[in-house]
């Protein structure tokens, strides 16, 4: 079961990295725990909404206003998306 969970979780993170890379014009390999609004020059407030809309489309979810206004770093994005789609990444 652990191996399956890791595969699923890894896929979620991979999809998140792909989405973020597309929005911020980076390579997926550049996206990681250190990635945040403070480290990405293009990450302004409208780009944040572009990111949120892209994540919603990718995962078929609707994020709340508070989530939309708070997902300003990669670890938080992974945690919230995983929670919303039920993979439970800690």
């Amino acid at each position, binding site marked *: 079961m652990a191996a399956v969970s890791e595969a699923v979780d890894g896929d979620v993170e991979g999809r998140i990295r792909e989405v973020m890379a597309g929005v911020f014009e980076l390579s997926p390999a550049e996206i990681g725990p250190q990635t945040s609004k403070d480290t990405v020059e293009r990450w*302004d*407030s*409208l*780009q*944040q*909404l*572009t990111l*949120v*809309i892209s994540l919603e489309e990718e995962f078929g979810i609707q994020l709340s*206003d*508070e989530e*939309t*206004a*708070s997902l*300003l770093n990669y670890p938080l994005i992974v945690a919230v998306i995983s929670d919303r789609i039920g993979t439970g990444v800690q």
Partner: protein
Amino acid sequence: MAEPTGATHLDDLAAYLAARYPIFGDVVDRGFAAFGTPWANEFEATLATMFAKPEALSLAASGYASFALDLMRRQVRFERERTYPAKTYEEAAREVYHDEAYMTSEYLPGLLLSHYLWPHHYRQARFFDSAFVAEMRVAQASHFIEVGCGTGFYSRRLLQQLPDIRGVGYEISPASKAFTEGQVAAFGFADRYEVLLQDIADRDMASTQWLVCVEVLEHLEDPVAFLRLLRASLAPGGKAFITAALNAPHVDHIYLYVQSAEVEAQLEAAGFTLEQTFVGVAHPPRAPGLPVPLVAAYIVA
């Protein structure tokens, strides 16, 4: 979740937004950096008068966040599609102006706070003060009409700056009427102002020397027909302060203005003569060629 602390309302607003909506965490600091102490004092007075209790301020802050985030979502799509979603005036009225819960909890508090937190909105208010209100003061104006009161921000501003003036507002939204009356009363001007729940397209409005109409045109299917009604109500020698929002895909904006020249052409087509102009941008373009929200304000005769 951080709740207001009992310090100034402006500090509480900033703290609440930073804790609950981090994307807006620096919006108060940026306002202060741009406009300084006069802005802070004016904003503080508005918050303290309109949202004195912590729970009222929290609700207003959440309303602002929802209002702004909704617009930002629409802005992202607008940058891609370059059109507003097709919507009739009747649909917008039903969806927005007559939805009392939405108007009261989100739209009106959000709009009121945006007059201070969005630089182009605040610059437009300062243009109103320095160009239009100043002219009214010199002329010893005694009466004005505002068509489309919104939150009542501009009527209240006039009543505040001209102690002897009296005014009438025409408004189609019951929630907007109530909010405007509440703001005017909270500032102590209720005896000099009344709001009529009336669409000026249905029944003639009174004639006036001084007319105010802020960000109504983009809500209409036929702005020129509306402008002709305004022009007909302007007494000989009268002046009007008329504005429009451009490239601003709010939920209830149905007429897309891309350039201020389009507004100017409509004002002239309706018979107005342009005297003074202000155009303000919300922010620099995010990339070359991308549309930027604008406000365009005119003093016309």
